[in-house]
């Protein structure tokens, strides 16, 4: 009964969420179009349309996010993993519920895009920068739709785990021991972990802020106007604090959850350290940004930092490791 309710909720999420993300895609095309037109012609009415598109997209992202929250609540309410009596020596609890974070699997890129959209609305001082960011957001929304649509196949890994559990339990398969152990570990140290609820969102909010830093650095190089440097620095400061805290609070979690695994100098950790030291270098170099050509070096550094951020994000998908979804 509980499993069928979960399946119904999953289907319903697809039904209500798919139109939302489709509208996001369509409006993002308009957003990209008006951004490019404004960058070419500099007419205020195009900018006004662009801002309206950005507001609509942000509202739609938030609406979709509310749908995702509802779905996660449904998973919590409907899926109860009750460990059989004969597994009691293996599993220290009678049952578990999934408290699934809102930034895993296909939802993480969606969350990042939503926060980025909100942040772009806070950049009001430079129309050309907002337009450039409009192009970036438009591409971002297209990537989310085609590569990381959270409504198309909601939480495929979680779904697979839940489905496998119920089917193995009902068939009396001997693999239930192994599955119960794995699922208990996944729920305790991954889904329901406090760190999973704090570590990734801080990083994604930081990433969203650092998109604006990178865009402002590009404009700093093109326009040579110190106001872009000031915008880049403002968002870099906020992003850096969240990046630092987000990365650091992942450490006690790693020590606890991966105590029997080889995770030291894992590629994602190496990538994160690389990204962090580069942003530290950017903020350090910025102290003397007003001296000689330092503004130029700082702006280039801001762009290199963002390239390292993208590289670190993609490492999950391209290099094997404990953080990765690819295996050798």
């Amino acid at each position, binding site marked *: 009964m509980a499993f069928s309710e979960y399946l119904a909720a999953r289907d319903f999420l697809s039904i209500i969420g798919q139109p939302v993300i489709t509208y996001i895609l369509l409006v993002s095309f308009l957003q990209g179009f008006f951004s490019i037109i404004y960058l070419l012609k500099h007419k205020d009415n195009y900018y006004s349309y662009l801002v309206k598109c950005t507001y609509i997209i942000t509202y739609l992202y938030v609406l979709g996010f509310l749908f995702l929250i509802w779905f996660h609540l449904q998973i919590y309410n409907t899926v109860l993993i009750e460990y059989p009596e004969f597994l009691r020596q293996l599993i220290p609890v009678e049952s578990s519920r999934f408290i699934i974070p809102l930034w895993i699997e296909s939802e993480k890129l969606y969350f990042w895009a939503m926060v980025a959209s909100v942040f772009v609305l806070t950049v009001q001082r430079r129309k050309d920068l907002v337009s450039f960011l409009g192009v970036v957001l438009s591409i971002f929304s297209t990537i989310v739709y085609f590569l990381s649509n959270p409504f198309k196949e909601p939480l495929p890994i979680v779904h697979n785990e839940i489905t496998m559990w119920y089917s193995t339990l009902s068939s009396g398969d001997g693999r239930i021991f192994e599955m119960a152990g794995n699922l208990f570990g996944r729920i305790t140290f991954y889904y329901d972990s406090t760190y999973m609820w704090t570590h990734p969102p801080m990083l994604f909010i930081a990433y969203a802020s650092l998109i604006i830093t990178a865009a402002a650095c590009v404009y700093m190089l093109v326009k040579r106007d110190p106001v872009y440097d000031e915008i880049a620095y403002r968002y870099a400061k906020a992003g850096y604090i969240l990046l630092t805290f987000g990365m650091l609070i992942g450490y006690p979690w790693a020590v606890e959850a991966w105590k029997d695994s080889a995770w030291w*100098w894992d590629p994602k950790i190496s*990538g994160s350290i*690389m990204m962090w030291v580069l942003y530290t270098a950017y903020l350090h170099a910025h102290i003397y940004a007003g001296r000689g050509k330092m503004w130029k070096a700082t702006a280039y550094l801001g762009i290199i930092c963002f390239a390292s951020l993208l590289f670190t994000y993609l*490492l999950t998908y391209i*290099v094997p490791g404990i953080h990765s979804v690819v295996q050798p």
Partner: protein
Amino acid sequence: MKYLKNYDYGLIILTTLVLFAIGLVCVYGIAYYNYLAANPQWQYTPLYIQYINNMNSFLYPFLVLLLISLGLCIPKRLLEQDILIKFGVLALGVTIILTFLSGIETGLGFILAIMTGVQCIVLILTIKKSKTVRFEKEGYIVRLGSVLLHLGVVILIFNFVTFRENPFHISIFWTGTLLVIAGNIFSFYPGRINSLSQLK
């Protein structure tokens, strides 16, 4: 004063370059890990320990340089420039000797222990608003933030290098983390912190 400014500018450039070099060490680590991972069982072979040791040995010299260039081990906020350079050279010399005698971890541990002590002294003097300590930037909150940030970084590195097996490892980690975050907030938003403290 201009001479001191140039000196600080040089240190900033050096710090930036060292940070960049640490980034390159990480890129090497990613590429080498990927190469080794062609064998899915490689982490259960001696290659894994060798990889970890190699990465640590590549990182540690840059960490020593970083700590020196950041002005963490050299107490630039306490001493005159000529004494400061002598102190830096002495600290670096002892670190190198210890490294040759007992390994890089002992050398790094030595320099980190000195830095922790120095940063604690700087923190106490800053809180007491002592005129002995010199700063780049004006304002009590910024100065406090800078000291907290530097002390936090030293504690975190010290903890990772020396206390990984210590029962207080995680407690020390949280102390360092809180200092770094508080330091960041104080350094980046001194105006807001000031207005918040005035509200009370």
